């Protein structure tokens, strides 16, 4: 893959997945739009990405922090009503069930769950996105999975 040299490269390569990720986390199109914009503006301001080849995890980290900041500011759980717009149905589990289950997760676990189970990132990239160790990322996903399973019983 060629090197990212301009803002346009970053945008062309990652904007869709970052928008989808934001939408999956916040569940509202307008709010996801805000997160997408804040994420890329922050990325443009601190361009270039800190490590070559890791811009994807870098963008996910910025987006995750934006979502967590917003959730903290508002001190409320997010809605997942718009999940249907972008998330495919997986393993026979309806999106409505999944979104309801994800709702119960705290922001950090929700991000870990979506990064790994919905966006399909490797644990190393989940760890980079969440600024934690790979072990901690695995633990968060495992804890989230446990809670999601319980919620879906």
């Amino acid at each position, binding site marked *: 893959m060629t090197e990212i*040299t*301009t*803002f346009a490269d970053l945008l062309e390569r990652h904007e869709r997945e970052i928008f989808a990720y934001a939408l999956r986390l916040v569940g509202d199109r307008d709010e996801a*739009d805000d997160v997408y914009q804040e994420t890329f503006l922050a990325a443009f*301001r601190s361009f270039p990405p800190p490590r070559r080849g890791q811009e994807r995890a870098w963008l996910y980290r910025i987006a995750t922090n934006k979502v967590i900041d917003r959730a903290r500011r508002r001190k409320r759980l997010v809605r997942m009503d718009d999940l249907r717009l972008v998330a495919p149905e997986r393993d026979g589990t309806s999106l409505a069930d999944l979104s309801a289950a994800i709702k119960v997760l705290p922001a950090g676990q929700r991000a870990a769950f979506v990064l790994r189970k919905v966006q399909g990132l490797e644990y190393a990239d989940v760890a980079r996105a969440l600024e934690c160790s790979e072990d901690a990322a695995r633990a968060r996903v495992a804890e989230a999975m446990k809670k999601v399973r319980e919620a879906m019983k």
Partner: protein
Amino acid sequence: MNDLMTDARERLVARARREGLETVGYRVMDSPLGPLWIAVGPKGVLAIHYGAEPDPGELGRIVRTYGPGLLPDARRADAVARELDQYFAGKRRTFDVPVDLSPLTAFQRRILRATAQVGFGDVSTYAKVARRAGNEKASRAAGQALGGNPIPIVVPCHRILASDGSLGGYAGGLDAKRRLLQLERGLIPPGGWPKKPARQS
């Protein structure tokens, strides 16, 4: 790209422009000669490239001059796209948009400025352009500088021919050069040539 994403991107680019993060805006326009990749910076038009993608060398020059803040921004390139449309329709003979030659060497700038003096419908030669740029013996170098003209059509390197009257070269291909010269002699169909998009959908 779906509507949701298109709207989001437009808002993002507008904010980046307002915050001064976007230094160069670009768009791809359809033309009778195929798609043209157009970039506009703070001082004017930086590039008109034959094709839907920028030339890597040209892109490198833009990034070295204006940094990485290059974004797809149709609005920023609207004026030059409009003037090009008018030109291809036979309704414009000169361009009003400013051009920015600052990423080029001093010699290239001199050659391109000399080329810009050749008016609509006229032609000149590499040797004459070299002489006008202050170096009579540099006609080969003038040809090379014109081959690397980042702003063809607006800086009319298609009006420069070999001394024997043959077409010489052209970055957009000799057929494009021939058609531009025909256009300037009034040899275009009523209403102009049809546009040739990058790909048919």
